[in-house]
């Protein structure tokens, strides 16, 4: 069989290993000259090799000077992993190729050297690539670049990191017009959308779909002990999970949050009588510690790793034969991708177990299993390219050197997400970068970018380039503080906790990090100092981690399931729990609206089961809290899932019907939205990416006197004096993207009519309990609640101190 696409060295190498290239690997070779190809293949299908084969073939045929192929992945660890996995075949084939990675972890010396003398293959991240393109010598660095491979493109395409990457690719394409693009993706619901983002607009992008292999072997873990009503720890399942670990070679145990991973790891360790080697891995742990776990894993020294999304993406770590997902998988696509971690042998079914943490999650898991069997992948489409990312791109472009606005607009429009960008929108972004873009023209003397007589835009002060680069990136990290063991000269680093968590600690408090209990000793120069402490029950470090929403599709499945009379897939304890809900309250029904009201933890709670999807439930939360504030019910916050909204405040709601009056709902909604915490959060993100707020770099933060002030002040100021400013437009667009058209709420309410059932219970109900654990709580900026709480507390403080007579 003649295969002219493969040079003899590679053909020999395959033959020597007794391998045949997979059909999709051949297909990638055949299309080596296509401008853009998207490969969709399951993990373990030799996807990475398929991406690199055309590069290796090219380099085997003729030596190449300088950079040949750029590989971009969303994870630093993935870049390091690929370097290792690529080195072996390259050495065995005997190709004289330099392969290097360049990420946030790369030292300055190496980075400088890489700019002066780039390797043949450079493995990097979107952020590092954006930085590379911002240097004046970018044209020289990328001279001769032939191919770019974007790995895990499905994950990147969901976020602003992807938008930034595709803008950087447009830049590269201008520098290297013949650049070929390759995207590697796991199974996705809308391959055409990803292809349109990946390709240079309007180039075509061919999609190659590899054999997806057999369906995964996936089921729910059976335990003797029933799970609790609520809670995310799944401690009840520890013995059963440990039993599974013993029966398999290597098990990955995924959790939805870092805090849950920490608690689970500790419980697993306490029950680990045989001292099986088990590790923990998540994004808040110190780099050294993560590397140790990663290398132990590669050597096959570990029987299990308790982990989070930090291991989510296609790390190719040999012998994993079981994946356990603790907690509801929330969205089916993610579940399928996680399962792909197990059993990396192509054409062998992946084995996975779901461990629901509470009984509601059992109901969710059953629905998720149905969805996997039905190949019903979920996902929401993304809107047009975000303009805050465009602003950052304009600044990074300026950092590389003077540019022509027309050329830049043309280039930006070759990015799929920005193909429809209007000239006016582009100019508003450019004006923002140059002058701040305010209605009040205050800054003409000091504008950041200036149009010089040559017609090109220059940085007014070339030194600004450094600060623009410092601020590059689109990842929104909440401020983190390093945690170290207290020693004479700086003890061992353990990881990071969020600043807001650190602020709640006082000396003597204990918390979990990296699977051990430590005692808080104090804060020194922005480092949390701790000592070892095994005695006391820990508080739990609150890591916000990734927020997952159950997909709309999944929640509709759940509501349909709840109407069933018999439900054999459910364990007896969960059926008993459902009937308890029926007994204490009611089960939600499609043509009625169930509302529960109960006191809990010193607050009054209202739980509305709309099953309208997270976005609509979120909108409902905003509307209802506004109505409650107007009627003096002092709401304080709410949280939404796809099936319900939980609102808490100071007063109980006894008559919900006026709250749901359609005519009243719309009035003043815009004003309420504008003052909402949700908007302020979006503003902070957009303002940071667009370069209005500088990222907090720990070295720069001053201790003592706070020189900085809250971004909320900037938001409030713009709202008052410049409500149509670009950043306000972006903020509204972003916040509203998550909020569904008011029409959906109208539909729900007109369908339900007056069939609103308010059930008052003395305490939390079976169905409402899991909502208390949900991430993404929105606090309501309620004047009335805040004033009443302050009055209460200040009166008490004055009484206690004997000063109230003052």
């Amino acid at each position, binding site marked *: 069989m003649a295969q002219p696409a493969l040079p003899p060295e590679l053909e020999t190498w395959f033959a020597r290993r007794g391998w045949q290239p997979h059909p999709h690997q051949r297909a990638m070779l055949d299309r080596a000259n296509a401008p853009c190809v998207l490969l969709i293949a399951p993990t373990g299908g030799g996807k990475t090799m398929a991406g690199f084969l055309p590069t290796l073939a090219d380099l085997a045929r003729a030596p190449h000077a300088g950079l040949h192929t750029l590989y971009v992945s969303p994870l630093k660890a993935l870049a390091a992993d690929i370097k290792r996995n690529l080195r072996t075949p390259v050495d065995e084939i005997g190709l004289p190729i330099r392969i290097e990675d360049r990420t946030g972890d790369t030292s300055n010396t190496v980075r400088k050297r890489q700019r002066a003398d780039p390797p043949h293959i450079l493995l990097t991240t979107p952020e590092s690539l954006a930085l590379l393109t911002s240097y004046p010598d970018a044209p020289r660095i990328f001279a001769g670049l032939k191919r770019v491979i974007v790995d895990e493109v499905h994950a990147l395409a969901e976020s602003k990191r992807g938008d930034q990457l595709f803008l950087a690719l447009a830049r590269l394409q201008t520098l290297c017009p013949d650049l070929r693009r390759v995207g590697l993706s796991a199974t996705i619901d809308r391959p055409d959308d990803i292809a349109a983002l990946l390709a240079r607009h309007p180039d075509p992008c061919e999609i190659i779909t590899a054999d997806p292999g057999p369906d995964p072997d996936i089921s729910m873990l059976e335990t003797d002990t029933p799970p609790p009503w609520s809670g995310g720890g799944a401690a009840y399942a520890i013995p059963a999970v440990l039993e599974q670990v013993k029966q398999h070679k290597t098990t990955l145990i995924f959790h939805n949050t870092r805090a849950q991973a920490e608690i689970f790891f500790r419980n697993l360790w306490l029950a680990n009588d045989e001292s099986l080697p088990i590790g923990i891995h998540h994004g808040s742990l110190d780099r050294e510690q993560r590397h140790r776990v990663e290398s132990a894993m590669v050597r096959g020294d570990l029987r299990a790793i308790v982990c989070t999304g930090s291991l989510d993406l296609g790390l190719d770590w040999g012998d994993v034969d079981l994946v356990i997902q603790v907690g509801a998988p929330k969205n089916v696509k993610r579940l399928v991708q996680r399962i792909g971690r197990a059993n990396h042998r192509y054409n062998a079914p992946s084995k996975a177990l779901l461990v629901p943490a509470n009984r509601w999650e059992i109901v969710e898991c059953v629905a998720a299993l149905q969805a996997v069997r039905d190949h019903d992948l979920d996902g929401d489409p993304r809107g047009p390219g975000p303009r805050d990312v465009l602003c950052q791109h304009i600044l990074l472009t300026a950092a590389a050197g003077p540019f022509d606005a027309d050329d830049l607009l043309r280039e930006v429009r070759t990015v799929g997400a920005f193909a429809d960008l209007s000239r006016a929108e582009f100019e508003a972004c450019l004006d923002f970068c140059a002058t701040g873009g305010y209605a009040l023209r205050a800054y003409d003397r000091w504008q950041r970018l200036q149009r010089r007589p040559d017609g090109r835009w220059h940085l007014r002060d070339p030194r600004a380039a450094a600060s623009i680069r410092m601020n590059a990136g689109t990842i929104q990290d909440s401020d983190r503080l390093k945690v170290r063991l207290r020693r004479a000269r700086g003890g061992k680093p353990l990881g990071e906790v969020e600043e807001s968590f650190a602020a709640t600690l006082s000396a003597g408090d204990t918390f979990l990090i990296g699977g051990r209990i430590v005692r808080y000793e104090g804060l020194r120069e922005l480092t949390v100092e701790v000592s070892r402490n095994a005695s006391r029950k820990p508080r739990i470090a609150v890591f916000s981690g990734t927020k997952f929403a159950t997909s709309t599709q999944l929640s509709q499945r759940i509501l349909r399931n709840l109407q069933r009379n018999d439900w054999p897939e459910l364990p007896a304890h969960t059926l008993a729990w459902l009937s308890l809900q029926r007994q204490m309250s009611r089960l939600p029904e499609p043509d009625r609206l169930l509302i529960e009201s109960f006191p809990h933890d010193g607050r009054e709670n209202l739980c509305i089961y709309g099953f309208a999807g997270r976005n609509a439930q979120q909108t409902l939360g905003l509307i209802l809290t506004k109505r409650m504030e107007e009627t003096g019910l002092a709401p304080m916050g709410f949280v939404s899932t796809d099936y319900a909204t939980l609102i808490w405040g100071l007063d109980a709601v006894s008559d919900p019907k006026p709250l749901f009056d359609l005519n009243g709902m719309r009035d003043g909604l815009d004003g309420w939205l504008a003052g909402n915490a949700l908007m302020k959060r979006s503003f902070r993100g957009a303002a940071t990416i667009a370069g209005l707020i500088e990222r907090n770099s720990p070295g720069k933060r001053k201790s003592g006197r706070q020189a900085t002030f809250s971004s909320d002040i900037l938001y409030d100021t*713009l709202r008052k004096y410049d409500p149509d400013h670009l950043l306000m437009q972006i903020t509204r667009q972003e916040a509203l993207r998550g909020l569904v058209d008011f029409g959906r709420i109208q539909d729900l309410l007109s369908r339900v009519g007056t069939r609103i059932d308010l059930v008052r219970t003395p305490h939390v109900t079976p169905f409402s309990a899991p909502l208390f654990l949900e991430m993404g709580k929105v606090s309501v900026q309620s004047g009335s609640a805040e004033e009443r709480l302050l009055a209460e507390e200040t009166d008490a403080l004055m009484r206690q101190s004997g000063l109230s007579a003052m």
Partner: protein
Amino acid sequence: MNGVQFSLAGAALTALGSGGLWWADQRLLVVSDLHLGKAGRVLRQGGAALPPYETRDTLIRLENDLRMTNAGTVVCLGDSFDDPEAARTLAESDRLWINRLQAGRRWVWIEGNHDPGPMDLGGTHLAELPRPPLVFRHIAQAGQSGEISGHYHPKVRVQTRLRAISRPAFLFDSDRVILPAFGTYTGGLRSTDDVLSTLMRPEARAILTGQTPRMIPMPR
């Protein structure tokens, strides 16, 4: 008037929810740390182009207090401008606005650490202003009494049963009052910070600014 009353060295004072301090007997209004022109200063020094509305916002709030109190004397306790250049490059409309506010009343600019030199604006420029039994200066001095100062931008955090609430605040004891920053673009220093804990007596109290100003023992 929406305020909390207390006395210092025998003078009856009212802490306003805005962050201004009112001495009714003297018809004297004190505000501190206006930091006018901060956005421009940040940009000039290579920072971001912040929304250039903080001067306007600060002056609007000052004007409200003047209307409410009809003060005969205004004392700005220093750091009125973010730096001398900010005072020099003040927009003409803002300059006229300040002139309008000054009309018919005595106006004292106390020197701050940000704006030490004389400014090209009406009013009296002083390092400090003695007005027995009180004395007005920018930075508190240990061992003084009857002292009214600013500089530190104090704020306090109150842990209520459901939520922690942080507000700019006045700090006072039998020797002194430290005013919160009045300017729109100003951060704050927690009252628990060493420098404030050392400066203030153990029995010191704080008055939180806001819709209804409220007094509590100073958190430390």
